[in-house]
């Protein structure tokens, strides 16, 4: 099996094919391992949240954009999903932020938008969101915010979680 890289995947039609394939794959994984999906494996647990097929497609698209290092495309798809009225969950916001967290040019404006949308939906930033915000603060060299985010994580989660979180 070949890994998906920006060099092998650039056309929009190819991306759609990969999204379709991933949706089928994740659906199979959930069927087979339904009982074994626990909070321990964080990546799998993201998919334990019940998502509609439209929401699932958005999450997979965000993850793919992150993998392809295409923050612009991610921001575009976020806007499109919002325009089409897709209901966002905390997991979806977390993946959206994580996809742009290492791109200073996109991060500041986009994170403001996402936090605003989250607040409008009545969600508090969770561990994954704060972690992405910390990463973004580091990428934009915003020391004050980075310190604040790090302290937030420390206060909320303490040593058992922080050990794993520190290793990006």
């Amino acid at each position, binding site marked *: 099996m070949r890994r998906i*890289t920006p060099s092998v995947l650039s056309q929009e039609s190819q991306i759609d094919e990969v999204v379709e394939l991933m949706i089928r794959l994740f659906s199979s994984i959930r069927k087979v391992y339904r009982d074994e999906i626990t909070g321990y494996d964080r990546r799998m647990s993201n998919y334990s949240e019940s998502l509609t097929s439209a929401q699932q497609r958005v999450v997979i698209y965000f993850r793919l954009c992150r993998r392809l290092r295409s923050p612009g495309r991610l921001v575009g798809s976020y806007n499109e999903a919002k325009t089409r009225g897709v209901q966002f969950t905390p997991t979806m916001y977390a993946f959206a932020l994580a996809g742009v967290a290492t791109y200073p040019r996109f991060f500041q404006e986009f994170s403001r938008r996402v936090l605003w949308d989250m607040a409008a939906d009545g969600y508090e930033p969770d561990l994954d969101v704060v972690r992405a915000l910390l990463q973004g603060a580091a990428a934009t060299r915003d020391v*004050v915010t980075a*310190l604040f985010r790090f302290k937030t994580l420390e206060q909320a989660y303490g040593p058992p979680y922080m050990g794993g979180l520190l290793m990006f």
Partner: protein
Amino acid sequence: MRTSLPTQLPKEKERPNDDGNNFLIWKKHIKTLGHRPRTFIRRFEIETRKLFEEQNLSETIPQATLVPFQNVPTNLPMLVVNIVSLIWYLGRRYPRCFADPQILNLLMSYMIKARIGPSVSAIFRDCFVHIPLTEEQQRRLDQVQESKSTNFQWHWPLPKIIQLPARLPRPDKYTFVRAMEYAYLAKNAVFATEVWIRRQAWRAYIDDRIEQDFHNVLWSHLGDDDLIRYEEEVRNDFADLRDWSKFATLESERSDGASNTLYEGYVRLLYIQTLASCGLCDDALNMIRMGTGEKYDWTFSMLAKVRDYAEAFEHHELGNYIDGLRHSGIHAESQTGVNE
């Protein structure tokens, strides 16, 4: 939000990639205040220790449950105090993170970027030296270090109260790459030789693991991807190894495959360049003759810088050897292509 540093002299940046907050710029700033060059290191030590005491970090860090910094550093001494103290705090509060070399690699990289030379070699020794050397390696190391003082410690310029966590990580490929890059940057042949010897011991340690698995008939041959898996095993005995394949692929992608061989050729080239730049052309030639350690051979273009050093030091044997590579490798291939 980016904080401007008072020590920064915007029109006199040493290198385009530097932020200005490095030791070279700080020295210029101190010079403008009328201090003499021979006092710079001492002055830096005094300033950092004063800041460390003013913030009362020796008292607060041992009891802290949250990062104990309030202010954003506004000059180089403050930045160094925060970084070294942060390592101390993280080591106390989250010792598990230090099972992996990432954080200490980052500390060493920062000191290289900030041009705080004494700290770099000290961090390399204090944080990453755990793999025992053979007698021959130890003898060679003692020989090269004979005249060099190694008094600095990883937490320099801060006092001894600062400690590393009890369990330290083993080095990884990046530890040696960064250390060797620094040796070349500082034209420090002694440190380069130390890094090379330590790296050889580390490679032997990895090879030992591979051999054990062969002995136990786990594998019939060593595939291209396996070396990186063993490196991951050695680097991180305690951590989760599930992700090694993902990281290995990403690293390989970003380094055009160089990470698959633990940057063997790159580290050798840096070592050879360091030796040659210090006039140790015989040693450089011996290293060249040892080969790249990769699947390709040295070519003239790879060793062009070494050729320049050979010329500067009038070492004809080295110069002639490199000249003899003119028609090998890529050059030979491209010429064949042209002829066809």
